[in-house]
């Protein structure tokens, strides 16, 4: 597979059942990774989640503040209860508006804003989940010429989310967690200048 050299951002969305996969990805994370990474994970409302702490055992992950500049190699975790939007000038906007698909952060919104901001230079990955958030946004990424990937539904603890994306549009690649790890290693090498 040839990998374009010009990616600007990787956005990963996940919901129920995505934590083990995410942890596996982080464990094998290629460092240095040459583009910014944004994680949008559903967490329970009003429950102070351990997610941030849990993940950062392996690697440095921060919850961005509003208008923070996206930096290569940094991993940003969408804060609980805010939507995270990617702006065309490479900054992050947080947004405290209505829930979308019963979710805040909404994976759809982050995917969609990344597609609008960076077009074909976006990679979106949608992991396990029991709802349909992210499917529409992932299709937006694909439509804008970006790379759209779902976790192979057969390997997902909850396959509704990746399956919804596959059902909704073409041009979506399905990968097992191991394939994702290999893919990310390729990206990281390809984007090195």
């Amino acid at each position, binding site marked *: 597979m040839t990998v374009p050299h010009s990616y600007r951002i990787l956005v990963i969305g996940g919901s129920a059942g995505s934590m083990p996969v995410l942890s596996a990805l982080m464990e094998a994370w290629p460092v240095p990774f040459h583009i910014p990474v944004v994680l949008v994970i559903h967490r329970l409302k009003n429950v102070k989640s351990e997610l941030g702490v849990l993940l950062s055992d392996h690697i440095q992950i921060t919850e961005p503040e509003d208008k923070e500049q996206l930096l290569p190699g940094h991993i940003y975790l969408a804060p609980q209860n805010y939507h995270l939007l*990617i702006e*065309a000038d490479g900054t992050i*906007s947080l947004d405290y*508006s209505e829930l979308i698909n019963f979710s805040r952060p909404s994976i759809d919104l982050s995917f969609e804003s990344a597609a609008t901001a960076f077009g074909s230079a976006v990679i979106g990955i949608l992991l396990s989940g029991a709802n349909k958030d992210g499917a529409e946004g992932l299709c937006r990424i694909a439509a804008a010429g970006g790379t759209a990937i779902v976790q192979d539904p057969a390997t997902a603890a909850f396959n509704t989310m990746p399956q919804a994306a596959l059902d909704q549009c073409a041009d979506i690649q399905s990968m097992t967690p191991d394939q994702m790890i290999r893919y990310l290693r390729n990206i990281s090498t390809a984007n090195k200048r």
Partner: protein
Amino acid sequence: MVEEISNADFTDLVKIIQQRYGYDFTDYASASLKRRFSRFTGYTGIDNIFDLKHRLLNETDFFREMIRYITVNVTEMFRDPSFYKVLREQVIPRLASYPSIKIWHAGCATGEEVYSMAILLQEAGLLDRCRIYATDLNEANLEKAESGIIALKDMKDYTQNYMQSGGIHDFSNYYTARYDNAIIHPSLLRNVIFFQHNLVTDQVFNEFQLICCRNVFIYFNRTLQERVVKLFYESLTSLGYLALGIKESLLYNEERIKFEPVNLANKIFRRKV
């Protein structure tokens, strides 16, 4: 999700609103504003941008409805209890040394933040010495804020927030329940005035010991944030307090050197002398 608006159409919409109605959204964070436009388009059932532009140009009422719809009005009483705890313990005792206290809530939405502040001041015995100026761009929000009416179903969460913020009184003493609503006691609002003020285009109108502008900056780009912080600087007494939303930052703002942090986690700053 709603259809996307092209960049050109987006720029047109912003221009129409500015030239026709004087509201300037140029320096709003574009990803979010774009989405609000699409959402409004979906809500009206209009299926093409041409019609949207046409109606905007020709129907003032349609524009008013749009303004109500595109601003993000989500708010809560005692939202971020830790912030209110710091206000209660560190800021309000300092305010007590002023013979008369002026507070500005910029972007007060439907008033929940103002009601919370009034409760804190009442509990500190300061409400009579205070004048609270609560402003917003969105007139519908202001009308609602003035009414003191909140959905009763939200009171459970707000009571919990209040207790987490260090409140020790019976929260239900602050409102009257009627059918599905809770009505904030009018006496809490005796020193509050609500009026329209646009942070983008309107000027300094008074001098304050405390300005709360929470969860408004997230809708502005850095340029606009910068301008508005200048406006706040000029509206604060020396050593006056500025409170932003928990996820908002002065870090990317040139004006930050004119402020010192009071509590960074809760985004409370103070104007230097």
